């Protein structure tokens, strides 16, 4: 993680979203907001050094006027004045999410949660419901944007 401050255009941030499978995003952006475990936070260029874990949530970034959304499931963020690195176990861009599948998995998770069972099963169902809802939400953002 060399300090790439010199190569980043001024007023921009380099955002890198990395998952174990690949480098998902590597772009210069203007603004980022991310779901930290202890509260959502926003990052503008020149932010101080900051390291935090992430919870299941929505990552949002802006390039000029264009808004981008992603779902992020667990991970952490390393923020430096010119660069933000998000390491996530699972991350998906809004445009990659299949809305129908997301809806189906919400329904499935809700049903599993209702059925109950062992505490561990309920917990699992709760987490998958949270994940599914998030994916649905992120995907719908994109649709709304499309209509606007």
């Amino acid at each position, binding site marked *: 993680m060399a300090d790439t401050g010199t190569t980043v255009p001024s007023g921009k941030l380099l955002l*890198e979203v990395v998952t174990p499978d*690949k480098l998902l995003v590597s772009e210069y952006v203007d603004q980022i907001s991310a779901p930290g475990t202890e509260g959502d936070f926003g990052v503008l260029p020149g932010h*101080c050094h*900051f390291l*935090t*874990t992430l919870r299941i949530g929505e990552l949002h970034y802006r390039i000029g006027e264009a808004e981008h959304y992603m779902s992020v499931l667990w991970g952490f963020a390393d923020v430096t004045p010119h660069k933000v690195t998000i*390491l996530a*176990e699972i991350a998906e861009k809004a445009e990659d999410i299949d809305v129908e599948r997301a809806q189906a998995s919400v329904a499935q998770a809700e049903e599993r949660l209702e059925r109950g069972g062992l505490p561990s099963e309920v917990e699992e169902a709760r987490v998958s419901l949270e994940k599914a809802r998030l994916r649905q939400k992120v995907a719908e953002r994109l649709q709304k944007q499309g209509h606007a």
Partner: protein
Amino acid sequence: MPSLQSLRRKIASVKNTQKITKAMKMVAAAKLKRAQDRILSSRPYAHQLRDVVRHLAERASRLAHPLLRKREGQKTELLVITSDRGLCGAFNANILRQAAEFLKEHAEQGEQVSVSVAGRKGCDFFRRRTWTIRQEWPGIFDRLSFEHALDMGQDIIQQYNDGTFDQLYVVYNEFKSVMQQRVVVEKLLPIESLEEEASQEPARAVGAYLFEPDEHELLQTLLPKHFQVQAFRVLLESAAAEQAARMTAMDGATRNAGELIQKVTLFYNKTRQAAITKELMDIVGGAEALK
């Protein structure tokens, strides 16, 4: 002397074998390409994570975390990474020989050794032997994903924290090049590699760093993650090495089959000619006798 028919059969059978080995070689080559790509694309994550963890470990006191602390205990676990399928040359034999040697050596030093195995071949091997198998993960290489590494990492860290073993080594085939695989033994727990690498690089000149939650808690979540990524890396390396080994082995097999076909064909033709010559001699001899 074998009959002509049996020679013809033999040639046909070797030809069939050659077709199969050729196909297997091609499949292995395609899979190898994919495995190599996966290694490459998993690198950014591993590197970034290592940097962050290293950076954190420098700040938080080293003894603070159980995964970093050396223990006095004499219980050693060896994680053996083999393949699920055979026909890949000496791939599994090399690993298992090295593993057996390692176990013997450490047992002789009075350590209590246990084994955990990934890959069906290794499971079969150790089941027939006297070493205690603590855990096995057969059949994960067909659809290898990060989740396998998560599972594996979670189990191992849990056992480590419970004191089932005090140190963990891994033995696996490192993918050096298509022609070369190297058996490597690495110590994974307690995590030591951070220190060595950290000293090579000047510490990042950073003043205030904000941590949320605090350093210790972050380290608490990041170190297991780091370990899981290491496990993933080892699995990917081994998967690529397996395909490379299979490709080389099948290439050799195809060539050997070719040689065998040539030899048997030559022998077949010689035998056939000899038979024809003999028949001619008989006819000539018969005609001669009638005169």
